[in-house]
């Protein structure tokens, strides 16, 4: 199975290299390191969000409210910054994480305690959190001139040759990698996605684990809220509207099975990078946004087809055994 995952990620990596190669034929500067660093930085927020979504999807759930959570939390920290510019940025980041955690915990509690399917819960909170943004802001925007320069420049500061935003993404990727491969909760997340019943018997609390993954995706949504607002320097009710679909698309392209249980940190990161490259490169080489959408859409379908083929391979092994049995 491990080889199989590797196989799938290498496939995706090969696709990305091919894509970069193709773009380079039209836009020679694309593959140079400075530009690739730029693409990575531009994709950082999507990568972080895709990781948060990944842990949810692994448990056979989905979080549709991530973009709304991002919008709400972003608005809260932007308003705080506008009203109290003295609050240091690390404190604002902690606040963003906590606000996101609360929103995620609400999803998690509804899924855990009331046993409502997550798609229904988060479809509801998708609307509620965006509505709440309107309520706290009164529909007003927070513009760049209302934000402190620290607020805006924190993520842009260069550190060892990369912007802080890229370092945050790298730290989150590393953290998720450790959590998924080296901790009890990471193992539990995989196990309940593959076989919830066997997990119950093995002493894993499935409901509590689902609650935890929604807390994780909530915190990620909150963190991304600050990063997004300080990057695009505007907070409004419309921020990241519909972006939850890009997040899910990144996961699907990255080989994370919507049916749960299958997926890896590397896959989610590569899936996000793939989308990031498409949205960065195509405008530069004069491909219309409509083609961009078509290409992203085709990538999703292609990824699902390839993954389904992969799963069929696996199925064939089981079948062969069923024959012998």
């Amino acid at each position: 199975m491990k080889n199989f995952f590797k196989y799938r990620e290498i496939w995706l990596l090969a696709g990305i290299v091919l894509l970069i190669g193709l773009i380079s034929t039209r836009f020679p500067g694309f593959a140079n390191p400075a530009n690739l660093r730029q693409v990575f930085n531009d994709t950082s927020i999507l990568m972080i969000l895709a990781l948060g979504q990944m842990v949810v999807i692994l448990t056979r759930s989905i979080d549709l409210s991530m973009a709304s959570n991002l919008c709400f939390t972003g608005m809260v920290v932007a308003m705080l910054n506008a009203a109290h510019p003295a609050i240091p940025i690390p404190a604002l980041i902690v606040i963003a994480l906590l606000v996101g955690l609360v929103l995620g915990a609400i999803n998690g509690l509804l899924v855990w305690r009331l046993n409502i399917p997550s798609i229904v819960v988060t479809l509801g909170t998708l609307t509620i959190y965006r509505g709440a943004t309107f309520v706290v802001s009164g529909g007003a925007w927070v513009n760049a001139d209302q934000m402190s320069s620290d607020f805006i420049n924190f993520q842009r500061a260069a550190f060892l040759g990369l912007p802080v935003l890229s370092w945050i993404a790298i730290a989150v990727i590393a953290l998720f990698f450790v959590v998924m491969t080296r901790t009890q909760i990471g193992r539990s997340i995989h196990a309940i996605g593959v076989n919830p019943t066997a997990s119950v018997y093995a002493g894993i609390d499935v409901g509590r684990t689902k609650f935890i993954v929604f807390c994780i995706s909530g915190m990620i949504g909150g963190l991304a809220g600050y990063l997004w607002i300080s990057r695009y320097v505007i907070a409004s009710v419309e921020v990241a509207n519909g972006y939850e679909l890009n997040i899910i698309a990144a996961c699907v392209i990255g080989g994370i099975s919507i049916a749960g249980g299958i997926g890896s940190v590397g896959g989610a990161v590569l899936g996000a990078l793939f989308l990031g490259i498409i949205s960065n490169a195509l405008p530069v080489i004069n491909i219309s946004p409509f083609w961009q959408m078509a290409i992203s859409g085709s990538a999703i379908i292609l990824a699902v087809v390839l993954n389904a083929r992969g799963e069929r391979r696996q199925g064939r092994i089981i079948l062969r055994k069923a024959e012998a049995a």
Partner: protein
Amino acid sequence: MDTTAQHKMETERPEPSGLSQPSAPRLTLSGISKSFPGVRALHNVSLSLYPGQVTALIGENGAGKSTLVKIMTGIYQPDAGEISIDGQATALPSAHAAFGHGITAIHQETVLFDDLSVAENIFLGHAPRTRFGIIDWRTMRKNAREVLETMRAGHIDADTRLKDLGIANKHLVAVARAMSIDARIVIMDEPTAALSMKEIEELFLLIEFLKSEGKAVLFISHKFDEIYRIADRYTVFRDGEMVGEGLLKDASQGQIVRMMVGRNVDHIFPQREPKIGAPVLSVAGLSHPTEFDDIGFELRKGEILGFYGLVGAGRSEVMQAIAGITRTSRGTISLEGQAIAPKSAADSIEAGIVYVPEERGKQGVVIGLPIFQNVSLPSLRRTSKSGVLRLAEEFSLARSYTERLDLRASSLSQDVGTLSGGNQQKVVIAKWLATAPKVIILDEPTKGIDIGSKAAVHGFMAELVAQGLSVIMVSSELPEILGMSDRVVVMREGRIAATYDNKGLDAETLVRTAAGIVA
């Protein structure tokens, strides 16, 4: 469909000596071979089904029975060999073609549609239509009722949703469907696996009915009493080859078992000298609002306590409560004199009680995870330090228990899904032993596995108790209960009906107690 063709035909197969042939076979398979990459599933096998007769297909797991059923139902194509129906060579290139020839299979878990009505299930794909081409519901319901009545199953309402029926009634619907398409060959693949005694009796009546209607029936079962009860002929497979066939009245159980395993199975159950100590687990007054009431028993050190009862008597439910998976409303559980109140499976595992559930696939192994992760799954609290896994400890835990069980795998990082059923069972057992339990509850430990693997599981149970563990074995198989238990608790309708010492205990007593028949 030409049902008169059978009178014109002649058998192409040389007749085995000593068989009386009441009529020509309806279906003949000859020289069938089928291989899958790395596995030779069937080699040059033959099988004949006769109208109005039940043929039992007997063989251990892995003998090739399921593959043959799939060839007969058009799901697989044989690599070599010939299929003839009523003497005419036929190809079954698809499930649809097999259906067209009147071949229908009723599986262990019936493949029907839970959310459709009984009538829709019976007529799905061949529903009567009005002249406008839309489904004629009135006729469909009427026909459904007629079919059910001819089967003496008039108690099933044609409008009920299938999911509201019990398994036995679902089987009736599956048979009704077979009747409605004028099926002439009915394959029953372990139809009794999930049925109670009474339901099995009803199924047998139904098979008698199919015989009287002149259907050719193939009956696949692991249970000899059922085979002798209902079948006329037998065909024995071993390792993908046909090793014997004939009339059941001419063959003893011992002869057939010898054919199946290719050797004499003298004593299937291990001889052991139980050393029974002080009570380990005491349960008193354990009750659940709907599933069981006032359950009390003691399990002693080094003892195998059998739990017998009809399916649905509440045995598994009691065990799940003891294992912390479901909650109880009243009662006490104490382990080595300490009262425990498990609120989750993790609590029970911590206390030293593990429950090995019945369905290996669904409740046991986690397919997609490597072997070592499966083994360590319930022990993660021990192999990790404040939430961080220690892979080296996991590996050594997995290695020590899988070695003890002689697991055959190339590496512990291999996906459990690639192991054979018997080896998967070993992974499940290793996983529970690795939690270092005091009490191990085995729910139907040998259900649906072959005789060789059964003996291994029984031997292993004997070893466990010899080492001072205590075992509760929930089983619906009388030989297993009588062969393995030191004492037997019999449950009936959620209550304990009796507890027996297994000394001179006979099967009849147990069955009577379980069924509530007063002697």
